[in-house]
């Protein structure tokens, strides 16, 4: 299978036996060609990884290819990068141009709100684009596990939000679920209400709190979600606000996710460039390959490529 680097006339530096990778979650942005408030004029002081000033510049396909030169990338899934919400479909159109020129991303998880006046219209517009396979839309969440805002406007219990969410099924789109770990059990309730909507939990459910209590709460959330067969999980973004990327700690997160979901529902993802705040692409990809090596090559290939290819239907283009 031709790699993205070969497709772009770049030397292939991956070792002979490198795993083929479909990166199930990364971002691209061209700050001269779109507005990304969080990277431009609305810097988030409370970003989950802390200081991210180094991300506040273009991250173009060439940059992605340069950082992944030692990997055997055969496909990617672009997840909406919080482009200005009046440019939601424009982001999709830009990514289509990128795909036409560079051969990736090969699937798009676009943005649409579920609870706005124009939700149905935006969702239909996104769904009409052949590369769009899913939607990421962050529900309103609380700022800490102690605070509950269940039922408030825009939360996963808001009837209007749920009504918009239900429209994913009309378009056969999946949902990329990104919430803090204390909302995972609520998310499982949504998954149970809509068994026909396939859901991809982002960033391993954010195991931010590595204390025994924090890990127990995270585990409980994962277990609740895994009971729903329509939920998959992306193994990505183990970055912590105040610590460096640590193989051993992250191995526990990865193996716990695999224990709970089973390898057939786990997808490797880089979350680049964001995860690059803590580790190189090679550290993350090679590290995870080592973490699951004892499961054998077939499982590695499923986690690194096959599962994402299937979940995001990389071979199909609807429209």
């Amino acid at each position, binding site marked *: 299978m031709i790699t993205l680097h070969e497709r772009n006339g770049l030397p292939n530096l991956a070792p002979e036996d490198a795993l083929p990778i479909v990166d199930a979650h990364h971002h691209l942005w061209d700050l001269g060609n779109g507005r990304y408030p969080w990277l431009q004029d609305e810097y988030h002081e409370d970003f989950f990884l802390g200081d991210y000033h180094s991300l506040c510049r273009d991250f173009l396909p060439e940059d992605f290819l340069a950082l992944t030169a030692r990997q055997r990338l055969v496909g990617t899934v672009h997840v909406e990068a919080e482009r200005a919400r009046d440019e939601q479909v424009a982001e999709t159109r830009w990514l289509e141009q990128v795909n036409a020129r560079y051969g990736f991303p090969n699937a798009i998880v676009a943005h649409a709100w579920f609870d706005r006046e124009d939700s149905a219209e935006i969702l239909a517009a996104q769904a009409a684009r052949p590369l769009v396979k899913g939607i990421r839309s962050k529900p309103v969440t609380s700022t800490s596990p102690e605070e509950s805002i269940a039922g408030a406007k825009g939360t996963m219990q808001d009837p209007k939000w749920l009504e918009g969410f239900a429209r994913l099924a009309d378009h056969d789109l999946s949902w990329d679920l990104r919430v803090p770990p204390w909302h995972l059990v609520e998310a499982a309730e949504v998954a149970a209400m809509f068994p026909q909507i396939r859901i991809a939990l982002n960033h391993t459910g954010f195991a931010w709190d590595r204390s025994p209590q924090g890990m127990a709460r995270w585990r409980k959330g994962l277990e609740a979600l895994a009971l729903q067969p329509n939920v998959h999980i992306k193994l990505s973004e183990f970055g912590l606000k105040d610590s460096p990327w640590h193989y*051993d700690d992250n*191995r*526990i997160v990865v*193996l*716990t996710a*695999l*224990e709970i979901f*089973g*390898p*057939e529902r786990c997808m490797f993802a880089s979350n680049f460039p964001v995860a690059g705040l803590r580790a190189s692409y090679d550290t993350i990809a090679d590290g995870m390959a*080592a*973490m*699951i*090596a*004892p*499961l054998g090559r077939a*499982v590695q290939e499923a986690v690194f490529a096959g599962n994402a290819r299937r979940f995001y239907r990389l071979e199909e283009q609807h429209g």
Partner: protein
Amino acid sequence: MDNRARFLASGEDADLPIVDAHQHYFDIEHHYYPWLNDRPLRPFRYGDYSSICRNFLPQDYRRLTGRHRIVQTVVIEGEWDPATPADEVRFVESLANDEPTLAAMVAQAWLDREDASQLLRQYADHPLVRGVRHKPTVTSLEAWREDFVAPGSMRDPRWREGYAQLAENGLHFELQAPWWHLAEAAELARDFPDVTLVVNHTALPADRSEEGLAGWRKNLALLAREPNVALKISGICMPGKAWPVEANRVVVNDAISIFDVSRCAFASNYPVDGVVNGMSEIFDGFKTITRDRSPNDRLALFHDNARRIYRLA
């Protein structure tokens, strides 16, 4: 006349020399064993085990042997405080100084812990220690699947890094895991051919239904294909019942036919199996079940194999 010769001459059950391949010593008054000292007690396959939450020392063992001729024993780590695993070795060594039957020990290890290398190197300097046990992470039969993995499981690469250091330290591995995890054990045995893997407690055939035993047999056979594996036949009491000779006859004979007489060893698992049955009763049971086997086969199962596996002098 030595023990083997005497038995071969008389053929009497009472003369059959026994190496008890799996027992424990506890001193809970002076040392900390979380599962014995802490309350509430944990869930356990034999149910309420409060009766063994007390000291069990060589004089206690001796009182229970009855008419059985137990010539040597192998002490397996007793879930001592995981913070100080090497201290259990020193404790058991101190018992061995006064107890000539205490012939070998299997120490506690934590293969995925940062101090694993250091601990294993330390054990290499204690001649009593022949191997280590680290109960890997396992799951229930209901939750199990073929591609099972979890932190601390046999497929955890960090755990395997620790396992990879056993051979260089002259240690073997004792596996306590239920039978549905034996495919993982077979992978380990294949990937580390220099390490002997000794399965504890007959791989725990707790479910004696036809289906349960079929699964147990199938997995045992899968593991038995690997040459560097042995099986201890013990831990097959049934809670609330006298040691069930007839039910266990099937288990023991199947285990022996799958692993062969040359790779099985009987053991008391005392005092833990004492939650359910008497030690004499357990060895009586093994003797009854093997009565029709040749004297040499019985010596292998009760004595010779354990001496070989544990390199006893």
